[in-house]
């Protein structure tokens, strides 16, 4: 044991050393929970969402709205109970008050109530199921993507414009599949030639393709996301059916096109954004994304990039503090950013009011499968459920 005076000075030195970091303390980063599917057969859209979001954040030095952010990446594994546990953990242990991402409808239905009831913020950059746009709408929820039905409603309207009389529709047998075909029928209005729902795990569509050949429709409408879409389009082309126009939602788009190759050429897909858009924000986004990730961004990437831009503009308005919830809500609602889709405005239910287009798949001059805009059947539309939402 050293002499008392020496010991005392040692203690003072230690105290001083501990005090210094407190004086030079940096701002604690704002935590953002990013929930999506990023692995397995359902992981491709979520991966695009994450990549685009992080590209924006990193381009701004790890900051949104001028404040440093910590993006906590969580894989919800396509399981609602896992998503619930993740949200619980992030809210309670990490004090997260702002969530984004969410790829699939059933995950959204699980976490939406939990997050909005606690008055935390949820910015969806993909799924927008009907109840969330309608009677379950919340002022704490914002979508930078679309309301699910819009993706098929635009194709239905296009089918009417093109004069297709006999349409054969297919989708996987789960809620999203039924919703999309319902959306198509809402705008197509005439009865469909046939409506087939295949088991969600079924990868081989030879039987259904034989049925299509026997029925001889004017056009075929499908909703087959991810790997299912790759399978269907390849098998459709192999059966020599490319002469029958293939209308679709989420089937021949950015993520699937490289795997589909030429089989997808000529297929027509409904969406709100395509990589050939001419506005400066979109062109910059596409160029940056292609340079960094060496692939063409999908609509999922575009949605998520817009979510990052939205948060950037809103956080700047509230100077990085979301404690004043009314102020942050107003900042988000203002949507004061240059969206990659051009004009951007939120409706009463905090879903975008936007144009919906039809894109045709083709082989671009660089030899890659790409899409180009061929029609804009719906201009500045609100979704079909906005009236059911009590918000103004």
């Amino acid at each position, binding site marked *: 044991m050293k002499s008392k005076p020496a010991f005392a000075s040692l203690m003072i030195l230690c105290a001083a050393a501990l005090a210094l970091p407190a004086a030079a303390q940096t701002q604690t980063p704002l935590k953002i929970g990013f929930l999506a599917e*990023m*692995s*397995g*057969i359902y*992981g*491709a859209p979520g*991966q695009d969402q994450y990549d685009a979001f992080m590209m924006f954040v990193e381009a701004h030095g790890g900051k949104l709205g001028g404040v440093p952010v910590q993006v906590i990446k969580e894989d919800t594994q396509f399981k609602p109970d896992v998503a619930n546990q993740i949200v619980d953990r992030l809210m309670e242990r990490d004090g997260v008050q702002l969530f984004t991402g969410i790829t699939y409808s059933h995950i959204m239905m699980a976490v939406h109530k939990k997050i909005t009831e606690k008055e935390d913020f949820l910015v969806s950059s993909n799924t927008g199921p009907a109840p969330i746009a309608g009677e379950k709408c919340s002022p704490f929820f914002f979508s930078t993507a679309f309301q699910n039905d819009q993706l098929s409603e635009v194709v239905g309207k296009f089918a009417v414009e093109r004069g297709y009389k006999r349409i054969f529709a297919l989708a996987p*047998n789960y809620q999203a599949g039924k919703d999309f075909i319902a959306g198509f029928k809402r705008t197509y209005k005439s009865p469909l030639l046939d*409506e*087939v*729902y*295949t*088991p969600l*795990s*079924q*990868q*081989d569509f*030879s*039987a*259904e393709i*034989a*049925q299509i*050949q*026997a029925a001889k429709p004017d056009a075929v409408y499908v909703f087959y996301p*991810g*790997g*299912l879409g*790759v*399978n269907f389009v*390849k*098998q459709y082309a*192999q*059966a*020599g*059916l490319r002469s029958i126009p293939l209308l679709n939602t989420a089937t021949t788009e950015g*993520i*699937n096109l*490289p*795997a*589909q*190759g030429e089989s997808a050429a000529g297929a027509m897909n409904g969406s709100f954004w395509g990589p050939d858009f001419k506005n400066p924000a979109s062109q910059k986004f596409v160029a940056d994304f292609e340079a960094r990730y060496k692939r063409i961004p999908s609509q999922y990437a575009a949605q998520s990039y817009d979510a990052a831009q939205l948060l950037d503009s809103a956080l700047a308005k509230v100077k990085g503090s979301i404690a004043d919830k009314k102020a942050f809500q107003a900042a988000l609602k203002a949507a004061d950013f240059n969206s990659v889709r051009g004009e951007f405005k939120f409706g009463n239910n905090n879903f975008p009011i936007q144009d919906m287009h039809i894109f045709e798949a083709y082989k671009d001059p660089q030899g890659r499968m790409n899409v180009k805009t061929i029609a804009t059947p719906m201009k500045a539309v609100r979704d079909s459920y906005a009236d059911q939402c009590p918000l103004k």
Partner: protein
Amino acid sequence: MNWSLFAVQVLNSVQLGALLFLLSAGLTLVFGIMSFLNLAHGSLYMTGAYVGAVATARSGSFLVGVALALLFNLVLGLLIERAFLGKLYRCSHLDQVLCTFGLILIFNEIVRIIWGPSPMFVELPEALGATIRLFGQNYPLYRFLIIVAALAVAAGLYVLINRTRLGMLIRAGAFNAEMISVLGVNMRLLNTAVFAGGAALAGLAGILMGPLTAVQPGMGEPVLILTLVVIIVGGVGSIRGALYGALIVGVVDTVGRVYMQIGLREVFDRPIAQAVGPALASMLIYILMAIVLAVKPEGLFPVKHG
């Protein structure tokens, strides 16, 4: 009743059966001889598809892709068997399930890390991309190839199992493994050979389906479930069971799915038929499996005893 459509659907069933046979032949032997439940069989299907896809893309030849897929899976099967499975034969089925389930997760992640989560493209060889006019429909020539390949494998396996010494050992092993090891046969080597062979067949199935389906992480699991149903229906350990079981499951699944929905629509209103039809159709093969387990639990074509 559109008979030409029915004929095409039967053909589709046979093609599905062909694919299932390639997968279940290996799995049933492994289960039958070593009483080892290998859930990672679907992952072997996936690795065959990936290696074949990459080899086809790099070399420009589908045949090279197929050959490399077979070779890679053979070696991979050998390595897995030697490294992991040797210790597991003595363990309970639950331990085997846990270990091979872990292998599924590992394989899915390795594949995702190397090639990403998006599906990969496999070029269909020009010569095989044609369709032939059959029963008033365009039927892809390539699907015929799959049927032919499976028949060739079935013939080869028949010769192997029934006409060679190795085949005799395999049959004896399926019947009573302990007895033949007591008789001096190197069961260890036999097990490795059977496992590696099964892995190669799974890889063949994987690359053959490559041009038709999405090559992506997790592609093996849906197919694995169907394969398990086949070996239960056909009889564990029996190659005959794998062949006939695969055909039966193929027919029940394909023809059943299509005609059940049509049949339901005759009886009920369209909305009801559309709500109930798909759900019932996906249950058909499991109902079949349940019936087989209740009535003839050893399978419809079990290994012949005595």
